[in-house]
C-alpha cells in the first residue's frame, strides 16, 4: 500500500470507478478502494468524505467526461439498483441525467446495458438476443 500524500484525482476516480463497476456499491469495501488506488484510507476520506462521496465523484466525472462509455452506464445501473432509492444526492444526479436524455429509446438502452453488465450474453454485439 502506497503512502502518497498528493495524487491525481482523475486517475484515482478512474481506479475507483473500475472497482465500483466490478463489485457494486455495497460490495465495494474501503479496503478494496485503498488497494485499487494505493492511497491511505485517511487520504480517501479526506478527499471524498465517505464511500458515497467516492461513488458520487466517480459517477459525476464519468457522466461529464465519457457519458456514452460502458463504465458510465454501469455506474448508472449501480446507482439505480443500490442508491437512488435511499440517497437523495445520488437520486438527484441520476434524475438530472435522466431528464436530459432526449432519446425515446433510453429505457431500451438501459436494458441493453443491463444485459451487457450481467454477462449472461454469449457475445458483446448481439444486441440482447441470443443467437
Amino acid at each position, binding site marked *: 500500500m502506497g503512502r502518497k500524500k498528493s495524487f491525481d484525482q482523475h486517475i484515482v476516480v478512474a481506479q475507483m470507478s473500475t472497482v465500483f463497476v466490478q463489485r457494486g456499491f455495497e460490495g465495494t469495501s474501503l*479496503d478494496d478502494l485503498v488497494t485499487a488506488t494505493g492511497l491511505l484510507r485517511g487520504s480517501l476520506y479526506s478527499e471524498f468524505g*465517505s464511500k458515497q462521496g467516492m461513488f458520487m465523484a466517480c459517477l459525476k466525472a464519468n457522466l461529464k467526461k465519457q457519458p456514452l462509455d460502458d463504465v458510465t452506464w454501469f455506474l448508472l445501473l449501480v446507482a439505480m439498483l443500490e442508491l437512488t432509492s435511499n440517497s437523495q444526492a445520488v437520486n438527484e444526479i441520476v434524475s438530472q441525467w435522466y431528464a436530459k436524455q432526449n432519446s425515446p429509446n433510453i429505457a431500451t438502452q438501459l436494458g441493453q446495458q443491463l444485459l451487457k453488465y450481467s454477462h449472461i450474453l454469449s457475445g458483446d454485439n448481439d444486441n440482447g438476443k441470443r443467437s
Partner: protein
Amino acid sequence: MENVVNIQNEQLVIEPIGLTKIAALKERIAIPLTHVVGASIDTGIINESKGFRMPGTAIPGYWAGTFRKNDEMTFFNIKHTSLPVVIQLKDEKYTRLVLGVDKPRELVTLINNHVLS
C-alpha cells in the same frame, strides 16, 4: 451498541453509553452538521493500525478514546463485533469518528442525506 447518535438542532450528537462512556472519556460530542462531510460503513478500519492512543482504553477487541495517526486525530468507540460507522469531519479537533451504533446502515443514510448534495 456503544453509542447513541442523533441529529438535533443541526448538530450531530454522539453519546457514548454504558461502560464505554467511562472508557471513552467522553460525556457527549456535538458536531455542527456543516462540519460533517459524510458517513460510511467501513469494516476494515478496525483492522488497520490506529496509531497512538492518547487517553483511552486498551481492552482487547474494544477501542475507545482518541488515537493519533498521520497527523490526524480519530475518536474510536467501538467493539470488534460492531459494524463500524466512519464519520468524516472538517474544521474539528477530530478528523473522523469511528463508532459502533445500533443501526449502522440507517445512520449512514441519515447523515449522508443531511450533508451530501
